């Protein structure tokens, strides 16, 4: 029996279908979860997908953070449930204080959609085990408020504890401090990522030349879960 990975749909979620597809392609069972349901239905891991939950009004993720499902997700994540927040999902994780820092308006002031080169900095998280440290990948990036900010102490700590999961290469598309594209919590089970690995999982639809570079985020967690005998 393979692992069951849930994908939460908030009002305004957009990449939930893509995340479900990616989970399925990775070999896990994809389980749709609903924002207004105080129940994780026994899933082994959760993806908070990209999109504009509640229109991104006020602050991205600020309203979604109060959804019923978060009332059960936050404690579960604190107890070690693997959680991947992509783009808007990353913003929700920061607003919920599962991850430090915040995401602010791109320094360009424009929404940007591009094929983004990244360097994987840490493979000791639940979601990056299948990559190699220093490996370079290209996945789509698309955000209007993707600038990662935190105070210097927090940034230093993230670096020192190896919690910077991925960094932007060539172009820093949104003004993120220290080119940070993704981070994890101390335990490594919770990862927030601004770029979109779920859009790089198929030869037909992924970025030219790097069509499936994103798939291993999903196989990583599957391997860990099954390995752990889930």
């Amino acid at each position: 029996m393979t692992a069951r990975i849930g994908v939460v749909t908030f009002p305004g979620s957009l990449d939930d279908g893509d995340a479900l597809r990616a989970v399925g392609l990775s070999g896990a069972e994809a389980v749709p979860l609903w924002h207004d349901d105080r129940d994780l239905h026994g899933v082994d891991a959760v993806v908070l997908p990209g999109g504009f939950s509640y229109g991104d009004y006020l602050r991205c993720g600020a309203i979604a953070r109060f959804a019923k499902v978060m009332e059960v997700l936050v404690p579960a994540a604190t107890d070690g449930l693997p959680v991947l927040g992509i783009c808007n999902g990353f913003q929700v994780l920061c607003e919920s204080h599962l991850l430090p820092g915040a995401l602010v308006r791109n320094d360009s002031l424009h929404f940007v959609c591009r094929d983004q080169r990244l360097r994987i900095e840490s493979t000791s998280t639940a979601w990056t085990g299948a990559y190699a440290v220093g490996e370079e990948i290209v996945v789509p990036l698309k955000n209007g408020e993707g600038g990662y900010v935190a105070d210097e102490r927090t940034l230093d700590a993230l670096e020192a504890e190896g919690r910077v999961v991925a960094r932007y290469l060539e172009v820093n598309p949104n003004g993120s401090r220290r080119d940070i594209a993704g981070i994890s919590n101390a335990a490594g089970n919770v990862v927030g990522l601004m770029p979109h690995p779920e859009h790089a999982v198929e030869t037909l639809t992924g970025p030219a030349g790097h069509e499936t570079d994103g798939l291993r985020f999903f196989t990583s967690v599957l391997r860990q879960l099954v390995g752990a005998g889930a």
Partner: protein
Amino acid sequence: MARVVVDVMLKPEILDPQGQAVARALPALGVSGVRDVRIGKRIEIELEGEADEAALERVRAFADQLLANPVIEDYVIHAADDSTSDGPAA
């Protein structure tokens, strides 16, 4: 050194989707009795010179070219009242 503030709000008759989304979210936080929420911009400008009427005038001169969109927004210009922050409770 003068600190001038421009408060920019959508005209009352213009839809404010952002404010509506917040108003709708409040009950979930157990907040009741909120009739309406409108969200606009607060623009703080630091100018050289005195914080006098002239300073306000200088800002007024470019406010509706750059700070507000007169088609959908109204604005108020006033000198900054240096009230200190309420929060976050440090």
